[in-house]
C-alpha cells in the first residue's frame, strides 16, 4: 500500500469520526449541554465547550480534507483525542458520577471500550503525522 493512500485512508477515518461526533452533538444540543453541565471539572466552562467542541471537531475534519492543511489537521486530531483520553481516565479515577458527553453511537460504549477506542485513534493520528512529515520531506528532496 502506498504511503499516500495510507494517509488518505487515515484522514478519511478521522474525518468520519469528527464529522459524525460533531454533528451528533449539535443535533442533540440540549442533551449535550446538560451533560456538560453535570460533568465534573468542566461544569463552569460548559457554555463555551458546548459550541467550541463540536465546531472544533468539524473544523479539524475540514483541515483534514485538503492536503495543504492536512498535517495541521493530524496534529490537532492528536491533541484533541489525547485530551479526551486524559479527561476520560481522570474522570474514571477521580469522579463518582460520570455522564457521557460523547456523540452518537459512541455513548453506548463502556468506559474501558471508550478509552481503547480513543487510544486507537490517537495512534492513527500519530501515524498520520509521521507519514505526512515523511512524505513532505520526500517531496522536498525531489
Amino acid at each position, binding site marked *: 500500500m502506498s504511503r499516500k493512500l495510507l494517509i*488518505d485512508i487515515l484522514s478519511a477515518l478521522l474525518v468520519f469520526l469528527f*464529522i*459524525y461526533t460533531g454533528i*451528533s452533538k449539535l443535533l*442533540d444540543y440540549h*442533551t449535550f449541554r446538560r451533560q456538560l453541565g453535570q460533568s465534573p471539572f468542566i461544569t463552569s466552562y460548559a457554555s463555551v465547550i458546548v459550541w467550541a467542541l463540536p465546531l472544533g471537531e468539524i473544523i479539524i475534519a475540514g483541515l483534514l480534507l485538503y492536503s495543504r492543511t492536512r498535517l495541521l489537521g493530524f496534529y490537532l486530531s492528536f491533541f484533541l483525542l489525547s485530551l479526551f483520553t486524559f479527561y476520560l481516565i481522570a474522570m474514571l479515577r477521580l469522579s463518582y458520577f460520570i*455522564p*457521557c458527553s460523547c456523540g452518537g453511537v459512541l455513548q453506548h460504549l463502556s*468506559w474501558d471500550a471508550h478509552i481503547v477506542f480513543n487510544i486507537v485513534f490517537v495512534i492513527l493520528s500519530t501515524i498520520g503525522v509521521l507519514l505526512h512529515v515523511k512524505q513532505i520531506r520526500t517531496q522536498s528532496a525531489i
Partner: protein
Amino acid sequence: MKKTLTLAFFAAVCAAGTAVAGKMQQDTQWLLNDDSIVTGTSAQIKILYCIGANNVQCAVSLTGITTIIRKS
C-alpha cells in the same frame, strides 16, 4: 488531489448522513429498575432517570442489549 478529496469527502458525507439518520432513530425504549418503561436516547435516560453512582445498573434497552450507567 482529486482522489484524496473524493475519499475524504465521501467519509464526511457518510458521517453526516449516519449522524442525521441516527438522530432520526432515537425512539429507543428503556426498562428502568422500578419496572417502568421510558423512551429516549441513552444520554437523555442517563440524565433524567439515572443520576447517581456509576456502578449501579439503571436501565436496560428493550430493543437491544444495551445497559446504561455501568462503570466497569
